[in-house]
């Protein structure tokens, strides 16, 4: 293994160049973020992920953001374990009735200023699951959403572009 580690000095990092922020996302956010909040946060955002009923596809791609290719933390984002430490709630899945209360409590536990990002087709409007007795709807039906990142699931590049738009507007 030592050999593999030394090789990494020769071959350089796998991390790919930064993407442009998502244009549509920027426009969506321009309304949402105020100047005072920007001053407070600097260029760093703490993210708390909440699965409100997802099939776990979105989680896999959110996980991928932390791998060597995307390296999310170089942009000043990092995932935190408690909503009390978070600036951003990244919510996946249609909101199941069974998770509605838990999502609300997580939202209320997150200090202001805060942003909610609805990740994936289901989080936007309930997706394929919207019609059921067990689903409340999209994230916006339960807590106010500032940014949506479409896709089933959105790939890591789409997730990055969306988050960079958030960072640019928020800082």
């Amino acid at each position: 293994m030592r050999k593999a580690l030394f090789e990494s000095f020769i071959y350089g990092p796998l991390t790919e160049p930064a993407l442009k922020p998502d244009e549509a996302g920027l426009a969506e956010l321009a309304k949402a973020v105020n100047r005072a909040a920007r001053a407070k946060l600097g260029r760093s955002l703490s993210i708390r992920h909440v699965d409100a009923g997802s099939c776990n596809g979105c989680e896999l791609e959110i996980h991928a953001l932390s791998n060597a290719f995307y390296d999310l933390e170089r942009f000043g984002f990092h995932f935190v374990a408690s909503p009390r430490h978070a600036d951003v709630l990244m919510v996946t899945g249609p909101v199941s009735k069974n998770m509605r209360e838990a999502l609300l409590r997580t939202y209320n536990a997150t200090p202001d200023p805060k942003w909610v990002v609805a990740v994936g087709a289901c989080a936007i409007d309930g997706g394929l699951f919207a019609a059921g007795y067990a689903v409340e709807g999209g994230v916006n039906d339960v807590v106010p959403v500032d940014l949506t990142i479409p896709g089933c699931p959105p790939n890591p590049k789409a997730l990055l572009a969306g988050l960079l738009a958030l960072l640019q507007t928020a800082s």
Partner: protein
Amino acid sequence: MALLDNIPHREKAKQHRPWPRAIVTDDGWRQAIDQLAAGRCTLLGLWGDAPDVHMALMAENFDDIAVLSYTCKDAQYPSVAARHPPAIRLERAIRDLFGLDAVDAPDTRTWLDLGFWDVRHPLGKKQPAQKPAPYAFLPAEGEGLHQIPVGPVHAGIIEPGHFRFTANGEHVVRLEQRLGYVHKGIESLMAGATLDDAAKLAGRTSGDSTVAYAFAFAQATEAALQVKAPPRAVYLRALMAELERLANHFGDIGAICNDASFSLMHAQCGILRERTLRAAEACFGHRLMMDAIVPGGIARDIAADGAAHVQALLTEVRRMFPRLVELYDNTASLQDRTVNTGIVKPDFVRQFGAGGYVGRASGRAFDARRVPGYAPYIDLRFDVPILDAGDVNARVWIRIREVEQSLALIDQILDALPNGKIQAAIEAKSKTCEGLGLVEAFRGDVLIWLRLDGKGRVERCHLRDASWFQWPLLEAAIEGNIVADFPLCNKSFNCSYSGHDL
């Protein structure tokens, strides 16, 4: 001897394939419970279809499967769980969804209905919801015990579920799971859906196993309609299934080591996982290969340069993976955490019919690809790795060995990939027909049973994830371990919440 030889039954359903479905009354149902309790067969599934309850059984040597159907009287049926504990959660789920009661059931608490729905028994005789009684967790009594409630929202990027630990200092005395938070009503959405829509829903039952679910749904549909997918489609399905297995095993091996604070393995395995997903995207246009398998065949042929991408992936994995395995094996601090942690007893694995690495790490030699077997695996050579230790380490090693087997399988698939069509015509039958599919996902066997109406729509579809028979064993595996080892044990199981909650 066939399974049904020992079970008295009135008749066999005429349009049920590929295995038989028998209509039983009390004596047949009880005879089946006797066989389960005596360990002569394995419970493969138990689901409602009001006013009936169906039970799928698998023979001891895995080579025969049968479905038994019991028609409830006054919405009641004799409890299977009363004598065979693996059925407990299944019976609780049937009661919540259908309002069918298991008589003499050992546990009558709700399971999927957490008290937030507007209706009770949404798949049976609907009734307005009532205010639920507080959920009573099972007691654990003794001096110095304390409870640690965790979830449903967890600290990491994972699915929601509640764990109630009772601990004595560092040591876990009892863990009780409370699941159902991501229940989306998939089985109710399936009822009346077109085959296209139903296949999409099946592929979103558990995102990490989307290929396996779409595969099992296609198998069940094709069995019901008596359609055969073309050979090229069948081989490409297996290619997708093995890519999915590779990606998940890489992710799991890394994540288990990460839960023992060994982040180097996590980073390196993450690279292999990403490369696998990129190869999948280059071949089939989607990183997780969602909606790529459809009833009758596959939605898209492999890209012209797809095989080259897969070859490049195999070369890279064969270069890097052995070094990672060596690193895992030679790092004493890591082994200190994984060896002898979270042991699952072989008896439990057999009793619960636990599939996947959970079963195979505790000596249960079941892999649905091998026996009962399905195309194209019947024509391919591969080993089913088995270990006996049953600890976290054994579950890691099963994954390591399965990665090696998947690489060899992909070689064979690419070599033998037939030319020709990728989609057979799907035509609705004029009468009702039923089919069953059983596919080996990365975490274990996925069972899908369905009944199609005469117009090509789904009338009833039941999806049973391997997690149903693995989650309860996690409760047993953690007993006597320290709280800090729970993430390690949990990740080594990597059960699906969404696949279980539906």
